[in-house]
């Protein structure tokens, strides 16, 4: 699909919304969906998960409109053994690899400056994304 089409589909999307009897409710806007629960995480991993949820999840979360996740799904579509598109579900990420990508970026993902993700936060993030799995 061309970019033009994507942009137009975005702009037009709201006009063709289907659905009915949408009663007004005082609902808060639903938060982002989380791929991984917080159970069983140690303190550093928990802090790392927080950083992930505020900084990375908008692109690497599950659900609709997640450019990091959808891009990685294409990147690893033919890989065996399979690599999950959700980076939180991966077991192959080392702390060094996480640090490398956050400070160097990848494709459309621009690197993060230290005023955005500090070295301490990055260490937590790396601990979270490389946490040993049972």
């Amino acid at each position, binding site marked *: 699909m061309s970019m033009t089409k994507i942009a137009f589909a975005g702009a037009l999307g709201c006009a063709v919304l289907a659905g009915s009897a*949408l009663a*007004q409710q005082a609902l808060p*806007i639903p938060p982002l969906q989380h791929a991984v629960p917080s159970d069983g995480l140690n303190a550093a991993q928990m802090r790392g998960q927080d950083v992930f949820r505020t900084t990375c999840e908008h692109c690497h979360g599950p659900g609709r409109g997640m450019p990091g996740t959808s891009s990685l799904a294409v990147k690893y579509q033919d890989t065996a053994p399979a690599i999950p598109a959700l980076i939180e579900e991966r077991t192959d990420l080392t702390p060094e690899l996480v640090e490398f990508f956050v400070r160097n970026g990848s*494709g459309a993902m621009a690197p993060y400056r230290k005023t955005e993700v500090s070295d301490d936060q990055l260490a937590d993030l790396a601990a979270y994304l490389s946490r040993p799995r049972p």
Partner: protein
Amino acid sequence: MPMLPPGISQETFDQALARFREAVGGDNVYSSDEDVALYRDAYSPFWGEPEEKLASAAVAPATTEEVQAVARIANELHIPIYPISTGRNLAYGGSAPPYSGSVVLDLKRMNRVLEVDERGAYALVEPGVSYFDLYNHITERGLDVWIDPPDPGWGSVIGNALDGGGGWTAYPFRDHFGAHCGMEVVLANGEVVRTGMGAVPGSKTWQQNRWGCGPWVDGLFRQSNFAIVTKMGFHLMPRPEAFISANVSVQNDQDVIPMMDTLNLLENMHQVNGSTGLGAGFGGGGAWSCTVPIYGPERVIREQMAFAKAKFEEIPGATVNVGELIRTPLTPEQYEQVRLVNFGIPNLSTFAMLTRSPMNPNPAGGHIGFSPLIPRTGEGLLEFRDFYRDNLEEVTQGENLGIVGPVFMTNWERSLVALIMFPIGRDVEMNRKMRAAFTRWVELAAERGWAEYRSPVAFMDEVADTYSFNDHALRRLRETLKDAIDPNGIISAGRYGVWPKHLRQT
């Protein structure tokens, strides 16, 4: 070692860094290669080439007082500085300065939402506050006001407005600079100025009246390099009760003329306030379409839509499909279906246009946009369509560069921007071709009396050159102001084509 600011000795620079460290704390001055490299523009069309613009260091103050201290030191030692807010100006320069060797003044740490007044429907924020931050602040407190996010939600409410950015809800809120009300700025000599009613001690109307009394100066700080902005007020939209949109299509090229006239009439009457999407008959002749989004109370917008529908149906052959009315706040189901920025919800889904997809498994990664303002009429659209079609071959020298466009944007009232996007990656040869094509579009557009509303850093001089009435009288006026306000020329040299005296080429 990162580069030195041109003309500054190592000794002076070391002295500057030492004094910056004293002013903001050692941890908040970045001078190693590794840390300074984080300020490179990830979407630079000059990536890895000698012309790529690079910083010499970065300083991250946390308060207005610290900004003042940094400005005073830089002014005394003639160190060029480049203020950024969240520094996510991707496609227009990222966080890299237009003048290599500048010290980036990174205001990301100044991230306090100072006030959100629900009754007055306004906010006062610091530069590091992102659209996500402001949205979270508002939703956590259950305030009944909307923000107007641009497509990327991680940007700065202030930085985006200062670069001339726009969003996707109702007018006037989606014109981000236009929706601001009151500023606090730090001048090159370290002096703090508040504009509008903010200049009145004890005033409680800073975010209510943007003009105050006497010459209005706020416009001087948009797309400029006259000061460092440390606070800015913004008008917010009270949550609209509902939203409705229609899709209008017409069958023939010539029908786009009455279609645009009708759309303009409705907008100029303020009966349609949403950001219309224009669909173009680019296959050569044929259907054009537009959306007609309206925000407001349910009963009112149903009537407005009926009025709009009848107006569009006066065009022979026009079809008007009115969509389902959507009440707010959105339900979880609706949340999954709508384009979130149209509902004031920040997100980052827009980056999907740059990432891998089944159709495009190896994209370039970044992009830059050429975005001239063209007349907002059907004739204007047809002329641009033909212009693009007739010149594409010459501009790209017959090669498929993956240029995408045009996308028509109507974020600013009464204006129409025709955006052409150029993929930018790490392939130097391809980037060169993109630059040549970009430059050619700028020249060709200028021949028609069209010029850009905003520019990537790499093309700011070229774009500024097209605003050339009376032998560049506007540029000379801007230079006169620059010399008066920032006589040592330390702030954002070269931004939007305004250079300080010592760097001007005559």
